[in-house]
């Protein structure tokens, strides 16, 4: 069993460019980490580079650089290694615990044959050379390294083989605890699968396995539990099965969104903003992720969040560190009905929209998807049921206030922008409406135009809508919808009239802006093909009902409802007959 308890690691760095500056800075690499890896289990640590993953791996063997200072304890079974000397560690290293190093540079000694390097720990333990070499050959065989390779030098084998040599070297002494640092980074897909098997074997053999990786699918394949590390803090701990679709922390979701899964359909999006500085002026007062978060509120900037159990019943060990208890629901629609005169347009609709999420409403014309969107936007009244925006009922929020929070991009910009307005005036309109137009607004508008990649010269801003192409005008509409910094963006068939090449550009722009602004979006479309490229979740409406509502990749991969299947096939064109 491997156990970290309140582990803190800091690196002292003397800034080489300012040698005269005596004040040494320190980087917090790990901030109060507590983590258990039990026997017969594999735990993965995921996170961006610089999050402290490798420091954790090194700390587990007390191999930190001399300029690192550490507090807290590290337990290998019942031995606390945090106060052991290097001399005392010599016997623990590789016997109790071994480490598969990240495969970069000369991680293997370039002047020794690989078999000697694999066998070295056994020989050090007093095994005879013959026994040690025989055991090494077995390991080489286990990892499917070609037998002839064993007497070569590290530079003579491929990177994938070197990775396996590193694993063979770690397994040679059959340690109770195994730490792997990015084991799949340099191997091909087939070897990767083999590594999964090897790791699973180790878990079955009652080893405690800690795996550090940025490969999310590898993490879910190998491990039972996953901890998400951000800037030296574990911000979420969750069962592997829930990583892809039921993550709770906005950061975890952003990681998942950035990861190129085979099955995913949506465009990749990076984590918005920039990673926290490695040299912070001072430790931030609030949540470390707040500056990049899609749902930060006042309290997030004020104080550190505490870990909250993921399980609502207060059970289990999984937690999320977030003031808002993880990804919050922005809108929840509960059992609403809407009819025009006596035609029922929406029947008993329920759905939720999370903060920072993109939900596609898909359905044929007349399915009620537009009505649903405008109900959510509060522009039409509902008959029964309720729509909750954050904590308040939509109908009860002041209309003007609420309209600031919702930006809408309409189907036709020609109609939604008055032909009497210049481009400048069109974008200024929401500001004027909300009484926010002032001296600084011109700059704001220019920025908004820049964001949608339109020119910002006077000449362009004085143009009238009819002088612009459809694509340009839609960009203006997007700029206008975003000028008030809304929390929710509704895009109502806003790309469907564009020709495919322009549509592609507008979609990409929309997604980039959604990601950078960190806002939620409802994307209304009749084209499920488009929906699958942009949305996290798809809700399919048919005849006023939601017939299916699931994460996009699931819905596309494995549609449950006949109508969904029909829509997908229709797009594929396979059922024209």
């Amino acid at each position, binding site marked *: 069993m491997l156990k970290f308890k309140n582990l803190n690691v800091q690196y002292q760095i003397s800034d080489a*460019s300012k*040698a005269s500056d005596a004040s040494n800075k320190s980087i917090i690499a790990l901030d109060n980490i507590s983590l258990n890896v039990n026997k017969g289990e594999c735990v993965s640590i995921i996170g961006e580079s610089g999050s402290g993953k490798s420091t954790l791996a090194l700390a587990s063997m007390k191999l930190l650089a001399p*300029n690192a200072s550490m507090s807290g304890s590290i337990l290998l079974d019942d031995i606390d290694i945090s106060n052991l000397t290097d001399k005392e560690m010599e016997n623990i290293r590789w016997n109790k615990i071994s480490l598969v190093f990240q495969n970069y540079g000369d991680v293997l000694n370039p002047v020794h044959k690989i078999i000697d390097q694999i066998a070295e720990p056994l020989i050090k333990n007093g095994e005879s050379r013959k026994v040690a070499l025989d055991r090494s050959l077995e390991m080489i065989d286990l990892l499917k390294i070609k037998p002839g390779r064993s007497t070569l030098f590290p530079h003579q084998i491929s990177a994938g083989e070197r990775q396996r040599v590193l694993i063979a070297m770690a397994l040679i002494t059959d340690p109770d605890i195994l730490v792997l640092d990015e084991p799949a980074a340099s191997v091909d897909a087939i070897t990767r699968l083999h590594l999964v098997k090897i790791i699973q074997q180790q878990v079955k053999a009652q080893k405690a396995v800690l795996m550090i990786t940025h490969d999310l699918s590898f993490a879910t394949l190998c491990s039972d539990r996953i901890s998400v590390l951000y800037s030296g803090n574990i911000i979420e701990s969750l069962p592997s099965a829930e990583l892809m679709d039921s993550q709770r922390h906005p950061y975890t979701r952003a990681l998942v969104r950035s990861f190129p899964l085979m099955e995913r359909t949506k465009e990749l999006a990076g984590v918005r903003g920039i990673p926290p500085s490695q040299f912070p002026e001072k430790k931030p007062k609030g949540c470390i992720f707040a500056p990049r978060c899609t749902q930060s509120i006042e309290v997030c900037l004020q104080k550190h969040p505490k870990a909250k159990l993921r399980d609502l019943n207060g059970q289990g060990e999984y937690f999320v560190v977030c003031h808002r208890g993880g990804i919050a629901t922005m809108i929840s629609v509960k059992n609403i009905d809407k009819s025009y005169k006596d035609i029922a347009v929406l029947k008993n609709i329920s759905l939720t929209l999370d903060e920072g999420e993109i939900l596609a409403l898909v359905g044929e014309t007349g399915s009620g998807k537009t009505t649903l969107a405008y109900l959510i936007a509060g522009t039409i009244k509902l008959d029964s049921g309720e729509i909750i925006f954050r904590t308040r009922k939509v109908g009860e929020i002041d209309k003007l206030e609420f309209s600031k929070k919702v930006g809408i991009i309409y189907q036709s910009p020609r109609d939604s922008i008055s032909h009497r307005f210049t481009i400048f005036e069109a974008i200024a309109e929401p500001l004027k409406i909300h009484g926010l137009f002032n001296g600084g607004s011109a700059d704001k508008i220019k920025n908004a135009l820049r964001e949608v990649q339109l020119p910002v010269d006077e000449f362009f801003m004085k143009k009238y809508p009819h002088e612009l192409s459809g694509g340009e005008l839609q960009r203006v509409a997007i700029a206008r919808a975003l000028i008030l910094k809304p929390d929710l963006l509704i895009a109502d068939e806003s790309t469907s009239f564009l020709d495919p090449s322009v549509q592609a550009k507008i979609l990409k722009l929309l997604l980039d802006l959604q990601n950078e602004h960190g806002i939620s979006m409802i994307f209304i479309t009749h084209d499920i093909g488009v929906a699958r490229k942009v949305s996290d979740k798809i809700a399919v409406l048919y005849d006023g009902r939601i017939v299916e509502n699931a994460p996009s990749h699931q819905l596309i991969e494995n549609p449950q409802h006949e109508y969904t299947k029909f829509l997908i096939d229709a797009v594929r064109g396979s059922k024209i007959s």
Partner: protein
Amino acid sequence: MHNRFLRRFKQNRIGMSGLFIFLFLLILAIFAPVIAPYDPWDYSFGYLLPPSIDHLLGTNDIGYDLFSELLWSLRTSIFFGISVGAIASIIGLLIGVSAAISGGLYDIIVMRIADALLAIPTIMVLILIAAYFKPSTIVLIIALSLIIWQTIARGARAQTLSLKSKLHIKAARNMGASTPYIIFKHILPELFPLFAMGFVTKVRIAVFMEAGLSFLGIFDPTSKSLGIMMNYAMRYLYLDVWYNWLFPTVISLSMLIISLALMSYAIEEIFDPRLRRDNIA
């Protein structure tokens, strides 16, 4: 690079102590005609006088004032050293940069010559040339410079090659910059530390060679040189002249070379920050 290099050098205690010793000796050498109490070729004093107020280090076997002779010898050493250092590093720089820029057969030939020169004992070459021609000091300076440029050329070539592949230089090329422009604006300034390193190292070699060759009797025996002084002092060692004749000479030469060794170590340390003593990360 340039400015940062000078700033780092100023902060380097080893380098600065080397520089101070060197500057001290340099000033003594430059102002030797003023500082020296007597004409070093004036042999009108008594033979082998012990040190006194009149003759700080006494006199030698033919009546030269040893202190004056020492100062003038230092002058010879430093003049020889700096000349060779400057010429050899300029040759090395030119050859290295041009080899890297032009490549091809020129590059191959020049660099093979550089490698071959490493295997030739420099001192033997100078002995031969001196024996053939009885050359003047200037000729020896040039001859020595012509056979010790190789390490600088290799360094300059390697660095120019790596610079050539840098994006900012490619960018400048794409903007239409000429080769001379690239060399003068982008490459040579980056090579300054290398030049400084080469210069100091070559001055050091030259000072040693000058002393060594004159000790062996290659130079005109009437000229002023630390090597010649040592050679003569050795002949009169039985007269206990070690403290006023031999050791001051030996120590002066050592001080000069130590100052250069300290500077070259400091430059190397600045060159590769991984060597810094205080850098333990």
